[in-house]
């Protein structure tokens, strides 16, 4: 199960090892990385889980890592750990959507709670993505004519109006409509509208 994986990034070997140990004993899958580069090489857009990274590292520090992840389309939530937090870097990290910002001396419970929050958020985001992808797949099965007809249905037109608009028989409209809705796996116009808007980014 990849769901509870934690990517741990820290240039300090002792910290890396000790934190990995504690997290494993707490029930997580942990991949340890001694540098941001190493971590970036082992993940892609499909990876699941969350990232716990040291803020202050040579080469690529935590904040740069967060930017690189954005650039590479890696949407894992990031928790920052620091030996001492400074306000400007905190603000910076939060602005880029850091899940949490903790000092290294916080008790295990606080860190684990932060990880759980991050994983829950990631899980929700993943489900959302998967759902959307499924919808897109269904949408791709529609013929151009079906798409046209369904768009007009969503816009609130009656079958008769659609027929007049497209210059086809009302019976043909009904046919397109029912096969289209079958392909999209929806049974009511209300569900169709919700789905349609979601697919077109109008949630």
């Amino acid at each position: 199960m990849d769901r509870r994986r934690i990517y741990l990034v820290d240039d300090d070997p002792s910290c890396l090892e000790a934190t990995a140990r504690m997290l494993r004993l707490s029930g997580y899958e942990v991949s340890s990385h001694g540098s941001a580069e190493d971590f970036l090489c082992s993940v892609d857009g499909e990876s699941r889980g969350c990232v716990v990274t040291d803020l202050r590292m040579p080469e690529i520090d935590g904040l740069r890592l967060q930017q690189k992840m954005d650039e590479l389309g890696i949407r894992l939530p990031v928790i920052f750990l620091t030996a001492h937090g400074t306000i400007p870097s905190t603000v910076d990290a939060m602005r880029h959507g850091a899940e949490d910002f903790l000092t290294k001396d916080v008790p295990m419970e606080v860190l684990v709670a932060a990880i759980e929050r991050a994983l829950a958020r990631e899980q929700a985001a993943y489900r959302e993505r998967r759902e959307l992808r499924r919808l897109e797949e269904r949408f791709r099965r529609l013929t151009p004519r079906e798409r046209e007809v369904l768009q007009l249905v969503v816009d609130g037109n009656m079958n008769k109006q659609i027929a007049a608009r497209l210059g086809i028989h009302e019976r043909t409209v009904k046919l397109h409509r029912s096969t289209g809705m079958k392909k999209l796996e929806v049974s009511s116009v209300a569900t169709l509208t919700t789905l349609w808007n979601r697919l077109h980014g109008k949630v």
Partner: protein
Amino acid sequence: MSWTTAIWSATIATCLTLVVIHLAIWYRQRQRKALLYMALTLAGVAGIALVEFLLMRAGDSHTARLLFNWANLWVLVIMVGLVGFLRFTYGIGSPTLAAGAIGLRAVAALLVLADALGRAGGTASPLPTIPFLGETVHFIPAPQVASTWYLNEVGNFLFFLFILHAILTMWRGGRPKERASALRLGAGILFFTLAAASLSFLINHGILQSPYLVSLPFLPVVMVLILELARQQAEDARSKEITLAEMVRLRHRLHQADRVSLLGHLSSALVHELGQPLGAILRNAEAAELLLDRPGGQEQLRQIIQDIRRDDRRAMEVISRMRELFDRRTMERRPVHLLPLAREVVTLLQLELSRKGVEVELRIPSQLPALEGDPVLLQQVLLNLLGNALEAMDDRGGWIRLEAAVTSGGIEMTLRDNGRGVPPDIRDCLFDPFCTSKKSGMGIGLAISRTIVEAHGGRIWLGREAGPGATFHLLFPLADREEATHG
């Protein structure tokens, strides 16, 4: 040897020597283009002098015409030289006027040249003679002017305007010293170029029967310019010395500022360096705790305990490295005078002081005996105290008074301010490390200050005077008199 030979060859020799000298200096300092133009001017004067000398001895009009062309060339050279000199020494002079003057004279020179070439085949007539300086020399009888003479005169006029304009610019933009320069230069150049031009004009138009005498008036002009150049160089050298001294002072100050921020850096580095092993120890301890409830964790527990030990050693190493850093600097011992020391500290803090509108009053008698110690460390103490006082002020401004006097115990300093004062809850721990009322800062400034003062055999304490503000007292033993005078 005749007088004319003596005077003219001396002039030529002087000019050529100076040309060589200026070129030699310029070769080594290429950026000083004024030297090159001065050499050009001098070469022009030498050329004119040579032409004049030859004219006195030229027997026929043919040779005279040839020499005239040369004279025109040398005048151009002198003009270009003077324009360049003024441009590169003072950055003055209108380029338009200079171009006009030189352009007109160049056109006139070309016309004269063309005229001479046209008449090259003609017959040469002998030239009359006059007595001059005890000998008989040839001269050119009037009217011997080319039909284009007015071009030359207008060119000359533009050149006067150029000089006049340059001098006026210098006078107007001037500090007193530059005005004096402008006067010397202006008077010199104007008078002598005017003299040379009028003399030539009178001779050319037959009003005066004399050989040409342009080079002689020009010689003083050139001398004035050379003196100016030398004076400027001397001044440059002096100002260079001043900037050097300034730089040394600045670097010293930077060094001081470094020491001040060093503490800040140190504390942040300390937190990071200690934070890493302490964080690892915490995680390992937590892991061990989780392991306790599970069977078969013995081996891992052993590993964890080893790691905890290792990280603990690492933290201790960080601490001993820090201590080494503080201890490594052996304390200097030499006589230190408080007044200059305090002044320097105030200068260092000047920016913050004026930003907050805080006045510092130094009531330190200049005859106060020296105390013995390390000036850099003592400055650190004053810097900490003044910095604290400054931070205790709000933005409405305030005052800090630093007094020093000899008392029975030694030299006593009192630092008083009208800020918020020391909060009652930290009065007792004020000189202990990590005791602070500030949001930022580690609270080690006063602890370090106390360490330094005590290392000097002194004491520091907080006065019990009623507020507002705080009063700090410092007492230092007097330096040994003899050592002080020897130091």
